[in-house]
């Protein structure tokens, strides 16, 4: 269920009213921070992405045309900001070590310490190599097509598909290994 922001808050943000901007930020920041954290290497990067994204949102709020929930509009800007951040800091240039990617025992048991399932799942996603993780986040969780992902990341469409397949397989293994999910008896291949 998307977060609903009142029109008066949006209008206040357009008028650059500080109180309205702060309310707007407080409503959406926790969810957007979780999105940024899924893309980022660490929490500091996630906060930088969130900061850049919200600056863009609040300075461009007057271009929001009210054709859908404002959360979806904000989310799109935040995701683009995350991708641009990774590109700018050359974090997407990490070479995917296939041996690393195939060997799920490489990850440290202590990296996932949170009790809550949602946070555990997030940490499992963050174990993936950055390239796989980015493609997986964009396709599976943000709903972008492989064509759009290819344009955003300046890669080929087939590269996007293959990276997603490998990411999905790897993530499934991690989740099963941690006991968060169980394999289906008759699982369909991706």
């Amino acid at each position, binding site marked *: *269920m998307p977060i609903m922001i009142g029109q008066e808050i949006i209008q206040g943000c357009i008028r*650059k009213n*500080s109180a309205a*901007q*702060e309310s707007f*930020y*407080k409503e959406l*920041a*926790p*969810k957007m*921070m*979780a999105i940024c*954290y*899924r893309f980022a290497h660490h929490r500091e990067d*996630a*906060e930088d992405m*969130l*900061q*850049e994204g*919200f*600056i*863009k949102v*609040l*300075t*461009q709020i*007057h*271009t929001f*045309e009210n054709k859908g929930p404002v959360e979806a509009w904000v989310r799109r800007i935040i995701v*683009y900001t995350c991708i*641009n951040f990774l*590109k*700018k800091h050359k974090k997407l240039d990490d070479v995917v070590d296939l041996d690393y990617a195939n060997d799920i025992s490489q990850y440290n048991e202590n990296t996932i310490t949170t009790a809550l*399932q*949602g*946070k555990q*799942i*997030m940490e499992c*996603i963050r174990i993936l190599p950055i390239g796989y993780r980015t493609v997986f986040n964009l396709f*599976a*969780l943000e709903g972008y097509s492989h064509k759009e992902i290819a344009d955003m990341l300046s890669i080929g469409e087939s590269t996007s598909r293959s990276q997603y397949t490998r990411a*999905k397989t790897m*993530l*499934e293994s991690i*989740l*099963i290994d941690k006991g*968060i*999910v*169980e*394999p*289906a008896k*008759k*699982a*369909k291949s*991706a």
Partner: protein
Amino acid sequence: MIINNDKEYELEDFLNEEMEYSKMTPSAAVWERISREVKPHYRWGIWALTLLMLFVPYSLVMYYIPVKNNGVASTAKASTNTSGNNTDKSSVALNSAVRNEFNNKNNASAEPAGSLVSDDGIESSTGIQDEQVISENNGAGQTEKYRGDLSVVHADSTWLNVPQNAGIEQMKLTAKLNKKTSIHNSIANSIVKNKKTSKYTLEVYATPSVSYRNLSDDKQRLQYYRNIYRNNPFTDNIAAKNVNAVVNEKAGLGKEIGIGIGYKLGAKWKLKAGLQFNERQYSIEAYKAIGTANYAFVKNNMLDSVSQSAQYATMGTNKVTLNNSLYQLSMPLGIEWYGFKKNKFSVGVGASVQPTYLLQDNTYVLSTDYQYYSKGDKFSRKWNVNSAIDVSFNYSGKNYSWYFAPQYRYQLLNTYNDLYSIKERRWDLGLKIGIIKTF
């Protein structure tokens, strides 16, 4: 497929359901940094407004408060009351130079030279001591005593006020008696010179003007186009074009209306400050067409864009004229130099800096792919700075001066903010016509 809590899911559906409610609280410092960035930068504008609001009442107050000029009250008036027991203090006061000269040079039956008036030039309310007067035989058997302020003291100590004219006559008489005509001349001239002249002026003016502009596209964005859309003839076409050639524009007639206060620094220089309302107009030839206007820009070394719906295009069949207008409030702060003066005519050169605030923007901007026009108010900077120079031809009347002044005004900063990567600089040519009142 995977199983969680005995339910089967596709992995993506399971993750979407879990992540939908996933939240994390960022640190408080994040919002502090964001709010600093998005806060409107109006502080220097408020300081300028505050300074002007202080300067205007200060100058008005200074006009009305009597200011001592060389120890003489400048609002002092000559009394015309010549009779009665009158201790009215209003009388022509002499400046210290005149007083001293009068004292020093007057040697006819004078008391030992001393101050004829109190040091501050204002008659003491307790009266003047005997030693502060000179006595003179008035030829009618009376000994008249004269104070430096021209009151006449009779032998019976009745004080009378002497009209200014009568005072001059008295001084002439005294000087004549002393056979020192030079004293009378210098004293009389000093009194004339002591007439109050204010340094402040009030001005009202209007400037019909024609507004022009020059556009320049962002080379960095064009280079990104080339890199991303390689071998795209359309993109290459944009890069090869001059954006000014794409926009078919006609200058319009605008105006400035203002009010200002001047402060004279000597005979040739004047400082000025004021408030001014500006109107700029121009028209653009376009064609009716529905589409999406894209505005690309480079930020943090990445190509980004915003878009909005458009109803006009640069090409088509149904031609229309888009009227553009914008309204501003500005605060000219300037200086003027009067280089040539003859009789009532003078020629001056003025320059000013004008912090400007955009009140309303009804303009259209070209999309960065040069295809559409859409509303430009979202891209315009609220604050800007203009500079102006003019050559004024002045005629000074008794209480008022009139002038006309050809003026060139140039906008120093880009019209648009960072979201719009095509830069615009404006300038105006106008004829300023005004009237000045000197207090």
